[in-house]
């Protein structure tokens, strides 16, 4: 079955091609069928592969064709099927399918329905390439490809300039990261002479090159990851990316694409394990991002923005996990996060759908009666992300905290915990403001309120199910030894684990769980008191002041970037264009011409037309020549 892995990306590609080319000639229902069906087919194949791999865990390589072969450099277009890629395959196709299904309902009235599905299928295709690739270059193909799809989908409603700007920003920021990735690939090739995983991820080979080189490689790769996974300093595009339709936010900007960075680092775990410096940087960047964005999330009033910052923050936690070498914990969190974040986004989408496009939670409230399914699934999602046992988020988050504790001690863990608590707070804030209290929107909206169609609620329910039980695939290490996902990844991570084993006891684990649950409960009560009992509504934008305003405006990071990078770039460019180019360089070239003309205007006046003068000129020059010739001895 593994040999048929090429089928997995093929289905979405075909879906894209058919929908894209047929475009107008395809009815909406056929489009939905093709769009979702192709992903379902991929999912089925992925499942089959998964089951095969369960029984036979050795990696399989599927070679399709030689892509770029130049001199010693060779990049094959081949796929690697191993536990890690299999997990991602399942998540991508599984969650992807649900979101496709959801989209058939959500986007039903949109003009660009077919275009939307074409893009989504293309995205799935590239995402699958990313995780299936057998070498860094194929990963890079998927890496850039998903960036493109992200661009296309963020700017899906292309009439709106803001959306277009958001799309552009996403693409360019990703490109900055991509450059890092690319340089990383060059470094790998330069140092190791190959970019195949088999060759590169080999401890004996790696031990031959200097640690600083590995650090450089990993740093470059990490720069790539910060772009794709929206870490400091390249995180600002993700909240803006919410300009796209909500299923896109769910699929790309929450569940799959943004976790590509995690995948990449997990994939290259050996490299990172050999570069402690990079690991530390990853840890601090991850935690910093998590903390920063979580705090921004506390004050956001746009339902999707809250989720977006929450996503960045969760990604930060995943990176923190990677930073301490807990790759399986990071991947685990990717999986659970995919479930509940997709769920939350789709729930939010359902809300927006019901509200007729309204996204400001200050104008919502009391929706639970009108949208019961959405409400209940949203509750599950909130609980899951907050890390309340036994929901999915609890297991993965706990794992991360435990790993951080084990490697970095209590101080760093406390920060991670703080992030977790903030997440809990703003998620419940969101929940309460949206679904409880009184409706604060217009009458028209109130009249319009309705539960979403089945095509939207079924995915919600399925995802809610997984958000509930999904955590059990990775029971805490310390408690249930060698269970689920860890066991699954053990073989894959063996080399890294050998470098940096993690030890912690069941006692520590239980303590951590206790502390976490206790604190979370406190936070939930606080949130409940503030928004449910007191019925506090966030103030209008204009009334914000002080620290709140700073945080609400995302610490003015965008503005800072703007004045530090964008504006100077524009000014310098304008300067080059208007001064250096036109005045100096072109001016110099034209100057030669003008100079010649100036000379000409001077020299031609010698020819006065006066024979008299000609006689003089001739005689004098004759004399000069004679003089020179006769007396230069």
């Amino acid at each position, binding site marked *: 079955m593994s040999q048929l892995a090429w089928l997995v990306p093929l289905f979405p590609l075909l879906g894209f091609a058919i929908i894209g080319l047929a475009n107008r000639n395809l009815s909406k229902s056929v489009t939905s069928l093709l769009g979702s069906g192709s992903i379902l087919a991929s999912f089925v194949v992925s499942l089959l592969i998964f089951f095969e791999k369960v029984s036979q865990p050795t990696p399989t390589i599927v070679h399709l064709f030689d892509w770029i072969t130049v001199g010693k450099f060779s990049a094959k277009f081949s796929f690697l099927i191993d536990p890690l890629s299999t997990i991602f395959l399942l998540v991508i196709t599984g969650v992807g399918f649900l979101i496709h299904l959801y989209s058939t309902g959500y986007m039903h009235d949109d003009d660009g329905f077919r275009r939307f599905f074409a893009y989504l299928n293309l995205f799935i295709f590239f995402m699958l390439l990313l995780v299936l690739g057998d070498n860094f270059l194929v990963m890079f193909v998927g890496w850039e490809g998903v960036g493109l799809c992200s661009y296309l989908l963020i700017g899906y409603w292309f009439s709106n300039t803001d959306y277009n700007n958001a799309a552009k920003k996403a693409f360019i920021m990703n490109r900055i990261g991509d450059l890092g990735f690319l340089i990383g690939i060059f470094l790998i090739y330069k140092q190791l002479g190959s970019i195949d995983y088999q060759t590169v991820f080999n401890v004996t080979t790696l031990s031959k090159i200097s640690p600083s080189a590995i650090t450089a490689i990993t740093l470059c790769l990490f720069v790539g990851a910060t772009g794709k996974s929206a870490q400091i300093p390249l995180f600002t595009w993700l909240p803006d990316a919410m300009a796209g339709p909500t299923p896109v936010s769910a699929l790309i900007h929450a569940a799959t694409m943004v976790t590509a960075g995690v995948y990449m680092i997990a994939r290259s775990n050996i490299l990172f394990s050999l570069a402690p410096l990079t690991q530390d940087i990853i840890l601090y960047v991850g935690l910093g991002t998590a903390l920063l964005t979580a705090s921004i999330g506390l004050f956001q009033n746009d339902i999707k923005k809250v989720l977006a910052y929450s996503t960045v923050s969760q990604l930060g936690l995943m990176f923190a996990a990677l930073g301490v070498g807990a790759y399986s914990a990071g991947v685990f969190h990717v999986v659970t996060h995919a479930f509940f974040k997709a769920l939350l986004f789709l729930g939010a989408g359902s809300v927006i759908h019901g509200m007729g496009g309204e996204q400001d939670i200050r104008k919502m409230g009391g929706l639970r009666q009108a949208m019961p399914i959405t409400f209940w699934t949203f509750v599950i999602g909130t609980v899951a992300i907050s890390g309340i046992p036994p929901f999915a988020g609890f297991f993965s988050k706990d794992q991360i905290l435990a790993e951080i504790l084990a490697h970095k001690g209590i101080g760093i863990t406390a920060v991670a915990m703080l992030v977790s608590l903030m997440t809990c707070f703003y998620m419940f804030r969101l929940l309460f403001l949206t679904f409880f209290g009184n409706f604060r929107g217009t009458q028209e909206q109130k009249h319009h309120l309705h539960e979403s169609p089945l095509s939207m609620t079924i995915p919600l329910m399925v995802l809610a199910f997984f958000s509930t039980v999904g955590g059990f695939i990775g029971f805490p290490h310390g408690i249930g030894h060698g269970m689920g996902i860890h066991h699954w990844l053990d073989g894959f991570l063996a080399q890294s684990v050998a470098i940096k084993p993690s030890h912690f006891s069941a006692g520590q684990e239980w303590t951590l769980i206790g502390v976490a649950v206790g604190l979370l409960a406190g936070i939930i009560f606080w949130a409940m008191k503030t928004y449910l009992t007191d019925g506090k509504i966030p103030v209008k934008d204009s009334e914000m002041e002080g620290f709140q305003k700073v945080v609400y405006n995302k610490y003015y990071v965008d503005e800072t970037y703007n004045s530090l990078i964008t504006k100077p770039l524009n000014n310098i460019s304008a300067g080059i264009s208007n001064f250096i180019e036109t005045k100096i360089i072109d001016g110099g070239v034209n100057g030669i011409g003008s100079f010649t003309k100036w000379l000409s205007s001077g020299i031609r006046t010698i*020819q006065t*037309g*006066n024979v008299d003068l000609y006689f003089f000129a001739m005689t004098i020059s004759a004399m000069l020549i004679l003089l020179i010739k006769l007396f230069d001895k």
Partner: protein
Amino acid sequence: MQEIIQGVPLQHYIWLSCILFSIGVMGVLYRRNAIIIFMCVELMLNAVNLMLVAFSRYHSATTGSSAQVFVFFIMAVAAAEVAVGLAILMMVYRNTKSTDIDFLNRLKF
């Protein structure tokens, strides 16, 4: 020191013709009347003739006569030139009523 005629060295003849030649050049530069200028050109040619005759005497043992023939040709050419030159002068005068060289400067720059 070579004497061309008794008591007069070759050098003197050369100098004489140089002086005449220079006077001719000076005349060309000095005057504006085309006819005079033309006359000065003739003067230059005569200076050359004089020099050639002097040299022919100097080379009389070998090729002296060819120099004299050369002078003869120069005279012929001068005559031909004068005929054409004066015709041109007349033509110009017909159209411009002037023989002033500075008057003719339509063609310039």
